[in-house]
């Protein structure tokens, strides 16, 4: 029976819908799986590893043993400050003593010929760590100490030879504020320096890299093992802007996958509807010949399960192929090469395919077995309409469950489900009245429009189902494109090409004018300068605190470090007050403080708390009167703690500024360092570059995945058009018999499709406006911009898309000789 119906073209639509559904799902699944892996690996380059254990004390060997056991690569880094001297010149530097393998992720770029440092092309990737007895230094140290290749420098008790210049370190961003020149040595030279002694401030890093699963396993194993003074860091912990970009990208990708599921469901519902209608006669005949309901049911069940498995496998293969192509296409972007995807998406795809098929096919099939045998005599007896509509209830429930499962985010899933269910109901209601209203109008129209409207009315239930399905499809696409635009715009907006990439710290008050002159001299726009006072938090209300007070390592770190405090009259433009109030000018005498909400949360600080800071030996006390939300993604200068100007005025103050500098302006930076030797220059150009590259990739990935949702949209379109194909073929035959030209017939159909598409488009625009806002605002934390064009876009997409697709879909209908069709019908 399966093969017979296949030949008769019965299953094409359903199979196609399933293949596209499963294919789309698995493509998105495979792809986002892989891209997420790739992106996190890519971003891990900023860490130099997939995972990092940072400790105040030497790490015990069992950390290494376990890492080796689960198959991770390791490298250890010992970090400390020390004076480095070249003759009489000396300077404090950050020294990293590394073991073989460093860096585990990303690449270390060196200039072997130190004379050519000003041309970045002359760099090469280090293929090992420094040999014993050798030191690699950064540009800052080279300039300050006037180093040349082959010079000997003193580090502690030992002497090392300068062999290369570090141009770019992958783990640059770890310890963002590490402002000293950086030096790399071989860990084997460490004992000879004599610098590793009790009491010296040393950080021990264990770098780990390997398969995602192994890393996760290790992370789970090590977390409970961590001792006081030890912390675990993945890239997400280290760089907030990457974390939020990745999280949003992941949400968007799963959103896109979900959208393709909805579209697939719509396509399947349409296809099954057609299938059952085609089988009404067969069932009636079998019933009249005495077939039992259970016989009919099992017949169709086998049939569908067999087909579901077939189509799902096909879909998985399709998904895998598409994803391979995508990988190939993106591979230029991802330096590391994409990791192999996991099998999970395939299994998910199969499951989703079967669940969707059965969810939407089973109920109509169950109905099919109750076809009255009387239909043999009176063909117009079909299924009660209410029954066929209620059949979608199970499908909807199944779809909802799928959503909650696949969304990975209960809230997001919930919004989408309720959004779609509400949309279906509202579309249905409005559609019903609109179809009635429009059909009433047909006597006022003529020609093509009359036939279009007549067809819509005659197929009113079909028309309604088609409109809803198409409306949902267009809505999903509109929502996705709205959100995608917002997402990409926001990313690009947060890191514009001129985002500050140089920070100057430790500017003294009397240098401010000189710095202004310096900038003028080089025609650089004056960047905003912020005052900065450093203080250590020592008491919250009555409670004296120290690092040991907190169990949260992040809080510990915050307390151990000095806070950078600043003053301001006005709220910085990229800050938002989330609690309390910013001071008015007349308040400026009061001892009040505005604190960043994240820090407040970590340290358990609430509005109204009294904070005591140790600022240069004296105590500063102030009350928290507001909390600010700070957008850390933007690389602007921002402070955890801000006070009114008067409060900090009399404490030792230095200034900080940030500005953008092209790589070609490197010489200006050299000049700046020479002119103001006390400045600390923090160069984040590399970090920004990497973040920008990542965002570009994510944007591109999102575009591509969106393309697949589009494909699923076409499946719906196709299913919708094919669902009335039989009637159309018949219509065509009669029209042609009565002397209709192709053009006349085409016009009548175009009118019908345009009306359906227009309705669907308007519904979609309405739904997308609301759903887009809800998802953007509540699930992705985007500043959603309402887009009035969406109405026009939706309407035109509906009219043009459906009409064109409809006419293409029905073209073959026109070329069948009428006699053949009429013979089949009678």
């Amino acid at each position, binding site marked *: 029976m399966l093969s017979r119906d296949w030949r008769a073209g019965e299953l094409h639509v359903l199979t196609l819908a399933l293949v596209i559904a499963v294919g789309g799902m698995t493509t998105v699944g495979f792809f986002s799986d892989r891209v997420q892996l790739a992106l996190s690996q890519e971003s891990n380059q900023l860490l130099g590893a997939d995972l990092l254990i940072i400790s105040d004390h030497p790490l015990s060997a069992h950390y290494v043993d376990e890492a080796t056991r689960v198959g991770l690569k390791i490298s250890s880094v010992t970090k400390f400050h020390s004076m480095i001297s070249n003759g009489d010149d000396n300077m404090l530097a950050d020294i990293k003593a590394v073991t073989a393998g460093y860096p585990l992720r990303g690449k270390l770029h060196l200039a072997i010929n130190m004379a050519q440092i000003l041309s970045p092309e002359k760099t090469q990737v280090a293929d090992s760590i420094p040999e014993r007895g050798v030191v690699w230094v950064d540009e800052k140290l080279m300039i300050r100490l006037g180093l040349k290749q082959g010079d000997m420098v003193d580090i502690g008790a030992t002497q090392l030879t300068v062999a290369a210049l570090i141009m770019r370190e992958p783990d640059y961003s770890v310890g963002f504020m590490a402002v000293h020149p950086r030096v790399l040595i071989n860990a084997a030279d460490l004992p000879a320096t004599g610098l590793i002694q009790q009491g010296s401030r040393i950080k021990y890093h264990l770098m780990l890299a390997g398969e995602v699963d192994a890393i996760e396993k290790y992370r789970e194993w090590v977390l409970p093992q961590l001792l006081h003074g030890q912390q675990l860091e993945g890239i997400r912990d280290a760089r907030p802007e990457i974390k939020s970009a990745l999280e949003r990208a992941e949400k968007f990708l799963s959103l896109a996958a979900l959208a393709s599921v909805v579209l697939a469901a719509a396509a399947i519902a349409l296809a099954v509807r057609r299938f059952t209608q085609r089988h009404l006669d067969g069932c009636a005949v079998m019933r009249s010949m005495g077939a039992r309901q259970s016989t009919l049911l099992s017949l169709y069940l086998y049939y569908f399960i067999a087909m579901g498995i077939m189509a799902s496998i096909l879909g998985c293969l399709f998904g895998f192929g598409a994803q391979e192509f995508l990988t190939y296409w993106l591979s230029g972007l991802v330096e590391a090469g994409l990791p192999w995807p996991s099998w999970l998406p395939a299994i998910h795809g199969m499951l989703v395919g079967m669940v969707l098929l059965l969810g939407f096919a089973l109920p109509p099939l169950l109905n099919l077995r109750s076809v009255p045998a009387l239909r043999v005599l009176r063909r117009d007896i079909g299924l009660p309409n209410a029954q066929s509509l209620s059949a979608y209830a199970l499908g909807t429930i199944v779809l909802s469950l799928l959503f909650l499962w696949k969304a990975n985010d209960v809230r997001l899933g919930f919004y989408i489900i309720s959004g779609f269910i509400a949309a279906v109901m509202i579309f249905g209601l409005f559609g019903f009245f609109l179809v009635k209203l429009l059909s009433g109008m047909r006597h006022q129209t003529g020609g093509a429009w*009359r036939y279009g409207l007549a067809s819509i009315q005659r197929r009113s239930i079909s028309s309604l189902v088609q409109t809803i399905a198409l409306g949902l499809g267009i809505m999903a696409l509109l929502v996705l494109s709205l959100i995608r635009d917002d997402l990409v715009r926001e990313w690009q907006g947060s890191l514009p090409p001129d985002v500050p990439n140089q920070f100057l710290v430790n500017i003294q008050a009397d240098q401010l004018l000189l710095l202004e002159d310096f900038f003028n001299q080089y025609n650089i726009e004056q960047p905003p300068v912020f005052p900065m006072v450093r203080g250590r938090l020592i008491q919250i209300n009555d409670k004296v605190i120290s690092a040991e007070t907190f169990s949260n390592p992040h809080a510990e770190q915050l307390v151990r470090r000095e806070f950078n405090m600043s003053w301001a009259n006005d709220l910085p433009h990229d800050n938002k007050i989330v609690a309390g109030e910013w001071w008015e000018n007349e308040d400026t005498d009061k001892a009040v403080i505005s604190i960043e909400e994240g820090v407040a949360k970590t340290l358990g600080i609430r509005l109204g708390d009294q904070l005591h800071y140790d600022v240069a030996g004296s105590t500063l006390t102030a009350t928290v009167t507001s909390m600010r939300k700070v957008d850390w993604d933007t690389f602007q200068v921002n402070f955890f703690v801000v006070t009114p100007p008067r409060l900090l005025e009399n404490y030792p103050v230095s200034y900080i500024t940030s500005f953008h500098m092209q790589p070609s302006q490197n010489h200006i930076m050299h000049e700046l360092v020479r002119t103001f030797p006390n400045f600390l220059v923090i160069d984040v150009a590399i970090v920004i570059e990497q973040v920008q590259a990542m965002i570009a990739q994510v944007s591109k990935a999102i575009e591509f995945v969106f393309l697949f949702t589009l494909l699923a949209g076409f499946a719906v379109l196709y299913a919708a058009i094919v669902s009335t194909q039989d009637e159309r073929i018949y219509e065509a035959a009669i029209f*042609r*018999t009565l*002397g*209709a030209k192709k053009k006349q017939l085409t016009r009548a159909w175009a009118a019908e499709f345009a009306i359906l598409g227009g309705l669907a488009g308007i519904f979609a625009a309405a739904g997308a406006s609301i759903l887009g806002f809800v998802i953007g605002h509540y699930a992705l934390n985007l500043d959603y911009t309402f887009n009035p064009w969406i109405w026009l876009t939706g309407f035109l997409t509906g009219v043009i898309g459906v009409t064109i697709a409809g006419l293409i879909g029905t073209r073959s209908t026109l070329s069948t000789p009428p006699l053949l069709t009429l013979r089949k019908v009678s």
Partner: protein
Amino acid sequence: MVQNIKQPILRVNSIRKQVNTGEIQLTILQNINLVVNAGEAVAIVGASGSGKSTLLGLLAGLDIPTEGKVYLDGVDIFSLDEDDRAVLRGKVLGFVFQSFQLLPALTAIENVMLPLELLGIRNAEATSKQLLMRVGLEKRLKHYPKQLSGGEQQRVAIARAFATDPKLLLADEPTGNLDSVTGTQIIELMFELNREHGTTLVLVTHDEAISKRCSRQIRLASGQIVQAPEQAFLERAQGAAN
């Protein structure tokens, strides 16, 4: 040369129709030659499966023959493209089917108006109303086919067929799906309208009584015309004279 005064409305030249059904080639019609003059009423008779419907379809250009030609009102219809053929059909032909073939989306009057509108005729509605009154359905104008009985549907179909005032009416077992009383009424109606409009009629039937009412009978058997020798002679002679 003897000039035939009457221009034949339909001329069929050695039609053969073959279809591919999977592996085997099936010849449904072969060696069909036929001339129908204006004003004639011709009955095509033959057993079920003898190829009557296929032939009728070919006469109307609803299907394409494997070989041979059909001249409709002097035009070689298979030299035209699909569209021109449809237009010619709309102007010259009326069609009545065994299973009515009304468009379910349209009301009775809309069904009758359809061929007129396709020709771009203005007062389609008035003409259609008149015709439906003529076939006794003045009360059912706004009803859908579903709401009509078989006999009523066939009346609508007949009204539709006559709407464009065709030169030739093709009817394929118009009573085949009706009981005998209704069938007789329908046939009466058809012959009446045929007379009123001066239409040429080609009627497929296997009802001997109906076929006797036609001026000429053509018998099909296994896809070939079998007929009385004297009629064959006459036809050949006529064909040669043309």
